[in-house]
């Protein structure tokens, strides 16, 4: 069960909004890099995000480059899951590989600042502030197994290769 506050964003938040190429020189220094998380979408985000918060976005979250740092900096900021109406595919894979849950649901029903409670196994999001309950799309089995291991590296260490069953 995950519990935290919703921090809302609009549609089409790209990897350039999340962590622009101009900070590429900081990529080997993740804690410095994380100070710029989502800077071009909301310059106040890094200052206000607290461990356990959720990023709640509209359509096509994470579109753009393959930079995995986009998923990593969100995780490093303490965000415990990303909720969006839809997610770009490379970002989706990167987030799961980094152990950051991504939930596809109708985020229009959630307001900025709402308290949320998420049950990953039941597939439900409860908005405590407005009382609404949402369901999210099933995560493919191979992705769920990776997520359950905490990311792709621990998964491969455990299983040695990809297992489809």
């Amino acid at each position, binding site marked *: 069960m995950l519990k935290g506050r919703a921090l809302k964003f609009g549609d089409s938040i790209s990897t350039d909004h999340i962590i622009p190429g101009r900070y590429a020189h900081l990529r080997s220094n993740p804690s410095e890099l994380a100070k710029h998380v989502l800077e071009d979408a909301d310059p106040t985000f890094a200052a206000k995000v607290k461990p356990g918060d959720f990023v709640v976005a509209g359509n096509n979250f994470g579109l753009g480059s393959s930079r995995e740092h986009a998923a990593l900096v969100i995780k490093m900021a303490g965000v415990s899951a990303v909720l969006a109406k839809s997610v770009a595919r490379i970002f989706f894979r990167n987030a799961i590989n980094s152990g950051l849950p991504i939930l596809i649901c109708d985020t229009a029903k959630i307001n900025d600042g709402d308290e949320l409670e998420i049950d990953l196994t039941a597939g439900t999001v409860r908005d405590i502030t407005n009382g609404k309950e949402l369901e999210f799309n099933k995560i493919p089995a191979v992705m769920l197994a990776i997520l359950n291991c905490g990311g792709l590296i621990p998964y491969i*260490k455990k299983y040695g290769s990809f297992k489809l069953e």
Partner: protein
Amino acid sequence: MGKTLAEKILSQKSQSEAKSGSIVIARVDLAFVQDTTGPLTVKQFQNSGFERLANPTRSVLFMDHAAPSPNYGLSNDHKLLRDFGRQSGATVSEVGGGVCHQIVAESLAKPGDVIIGADSHTVTAGALSAFATGMGSTDVAIALALGETWLRVPESIKIVLSGNFPDGVYGKDLILYLIGQIGADGATYKALEFGGSGVDNMSMSARLTIANMVVEAGAKAGLFASDKITREYLASQGRSNEYQPISSDDDASYEKTINIDMAKLEPMVAKPHTVDNTAPVTEVRGTKINQVVIGTCTNGRLDDLAIAANILRGKKRHPQTRLIIAPASRQVILESIQAGYIQTLIEAEAVILPPGCGPCLGLHQGVLGSGEVCLSTSNRNFRGRMGSPKAFIYLASPATAAASALTGEITDPREVI
């Protein structure tokens, strides 16, 4: 039931019946990283506990995004990649070689391959009938170690092209038009398969431009069947023996079909700040621009530089508009020198960059300042992409870019050719 191109390639490489929606484990023919994603791949490879690459000769580390390095942080990243190359036996594509996707097209990709790159524009090699897709650093680290990866077999959308490009209209205009029609998430998780009579005479360079940008509609792959043009291209690169016929079956099933009559297209732009914010160039004509960029993995090939040189020959760029040329590879710059294009462009007062990504991602070599407007032949115009988040980026073809460099404002290339 017949197979789409994606299903065909992934069936071959997974030794299974790869149907849309199923998940397969596919053999990887080529895995690569570039200098901004590669350092994390190296770290994750080391974390994974593997010691050897599955296929060292088909593992490539490209120095292209910041090449030569503009600061010591990035120099350290380059150093790390070179060291890893030396230890692991992976190929290092050094500074000056060019953009990964162009080199993959010139010398590595072949029909039927599965190609995984830690760069979203890996889709470019779909022009050569390879199932090529971008992934993150960790996925590529594991693909380097195992020589395989898991893939969800995408549903396909068929794009049926007919007719021929009118004068002044190119592959770039077609793909901008298509992205404008279906939107930046119009093909998320899907493959776009290009076919129809309009493809028959389409140059490899136009196909590469189109495949390059399918990811801007969210697509996982952009695929062309292999044909005479593919065979001729491989032959011109001294790779005749790598040709293999591969195409979809007539009774394959597609999620939908989109028909485009190429004869009806016109020069297009993508306006700030999203790639699907497209319009005919006539709509934004007259917009003043501070910088024009011609090049990158989208439009930095010989044909593109030829178009620009033909428009700029004997003329000079507008005094208030900087003109930057970023050839996609060493081969491109060498051939452009031999053809005289580089001289023509320098006489037109262009700056010629070394082969590589150039100013495309705002790292160096033409970073935009606040309030500046750029017209670029690259593939992304997101806020902050090329420097200041307060800059404005328009995307267009090399013809539109060259015509606009002459006048200092966005110009319809049909007015100057």
